Each structure stands twice: as structure tokens, then as C-alpha cells.
């Protein structure tokens, strides 16, 4: 009997004294920009040649937790708009290095009219323009060894510079309105 009372009392005390867990808050940032640069590869001539890369419009965002503000995952969609058209996207792991600088690595490629797949690495710099907006400067390098858009088995290389606007638009609660914060 005594053992039971002690057990129940201990369990109730443990539950009652536990501090309530706070909901994790997700930090969402969005970006839009224009990018171009150089595109290189061996189209079958036996030598690597370079030319101006297609101009592209990019839009995307990254998501991270307020409990771990260093690591984030990002999605980026892009449309090459001249001189030829294609659409594609990127999936990135982003590592924040301070408030105004990140490094990232991930997968990139085009989906239509032909496919291209490969990897991308780069850095981002943010120059604050206000409370939530920043000027985005993003040099990146991609190597794309797979896809139907390649005339040979040699990889296509992109060295791009994206300039755009970034906004820290939303701090959404992961608990999703689960009572007062």
C-alpha cells in the first residue's frame, strides 16, 4: 500500500513539475532574382568551350527552425528565358554563416524541354535594405553530368551569378495555433 502511494505520488509530481514544451517556430524566407553567367562543356569537339549562360529567372525559399537557425533546407525553381527556354529547380541544404552570409550545396537540374541533373554549390550574401528585405547576391557553380540535354557524356558546367531580393516573410508556428504562445 505504501509502495503504491509513493509510486503514484512520484508520478504525479514528475508530471506536475515538468515545464511545458514550447512549440518550434519555423522561419521562412523567400527570394526572387535574375541570374546569368558562363556555361561550359565539351559538345563533342574534344575541347571544353565556354559561352554566356542563359539568362534565368529564379524564385524560391528556405525553411529553418528557430531552435536551429544555422541549418536550413531550400527549394528553388528557375526558368531559363533567353536565348532558349527551359524550366528546372534546385534542392539545397543551406548553412547560415552569420546573419548575412550562407553557403549551400544541393541538387540542380532542368525538367523541360530536356532533362539535366547534377550538383550545385554556392554562397549567398545579403545586404539589408530594410527590416525584412535584403539584396541577394549569389554566386554558384554547378556540374551537370546527367540528362537528355547533353549531346555527349561530358558534363555541362554553369558558373552563375544571381542578383535579387530576399525577404524574411513569415515566422510560422509548427504547433499551428496550438493555444497561446
Amino acid at each position, binding site marked *: 500500500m505504501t509502495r503504491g502511494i509513493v509510486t503514484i505520488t512520484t508520478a504525479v509530481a514528475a508530471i506536475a513539475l515538468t515545464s511545458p514544451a514550447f512549440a518550434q517556430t519555423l522561419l521562412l524566407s523567400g527570394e526572387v532574382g535574375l541570374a546569368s553567367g558562363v556555361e561550359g*562543356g565539351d559538345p563533342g569537339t574534344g575541347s571544353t568551350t565556354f559561352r554566356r549562360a542563359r539568362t534565368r529567372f529564379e524564385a524560391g525559399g528556405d525553411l529553418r527552425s528557430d531552435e536551429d537557425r544555422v541549418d536550413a533546407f531550400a527549394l528553388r525553381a528557375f526558368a531559363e528565358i533567353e536565348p532558349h527556354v527551359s524550366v528546372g529547380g534546385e534542392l539545397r541544404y543551406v548553412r547560415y554563416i552569420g546573419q548575412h552570409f550562407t553557403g549551400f550545396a544541393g541538387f540542380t537540374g532542368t525538367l523541360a524541354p530536356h532533362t539535366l541533373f547534377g550538383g550545385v554549390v554556392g554562397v549567398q550574401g545579403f545586404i539589408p535594405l530594410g527590416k525584412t528585405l535584403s539584396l541577394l547576391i549569389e554566386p554558384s557553380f554547378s556540374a551537370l553530368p546527367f540528362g537528355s540535354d547533353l549531346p555527349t557524356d561530358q558534363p555541362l558546367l554553369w558558373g552563375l551569378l544571381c542578383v535579387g531580393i530576399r525577404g524574411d516573410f513569415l515566422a510560422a508556428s509548427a504547433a499551428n495555433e496550438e493555444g497561446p504562445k
Partner: protein
Amino acid sequence: MKVLATALALLVTLVVLQQAACLEANQCMRLSDCPTGDVCTAGLCVPAGITGDGAAEGGDATPPTQDAVPPAESSLLDEAAALDDGAGDAAPAAAD
């Protein structure tokens, strides 16, 4: 910090523009550079079924240059041969 970032951005932009200015033009590097129905072969857009050296894929291995001798050049060769024959006939006559 702002000045440094702006300077870095300008430097990268200048490097990219300088690179782009020196690039080779009129070449395909991706299939999507070519019109529909063309393929990118040896850096050039050619109709599907034609290789970069002008030979038809799947055909015989005869180099295109052998078939591509202009008629004018052929007639010149014939004329030269005829002149040689004429000179050969005229030389004995002169000796006589």
C-alpha cells in the same frame, strides 16, 4: 560590411561579363540550343540523321568530299587531260 559586399558583387559581375565577352558563339552545347528536329553534333546543330562531318548516319562510310567534287572542277580536269593528249599528238608532227 556593405561596402565590402558591394565591391565583391561588382568584382564578380565584371569577371562574369569579361568571360562572357570572350565566348565562342554559334555553337550548341545542349540539345535544347538547336531547333526542333536538329541535334547537337560536334558543337553544331545539324538535322537529325546527319553527323557533324556531313555524313549521313546509317549510310556507307564514303567521305562526303569524294561525292562533293564540283562539276566545274571535273570539266577542268577533263580539259587539262585533253590538252595533254593534244600536245602529245602535236609533238611528233613538229618533229616531222
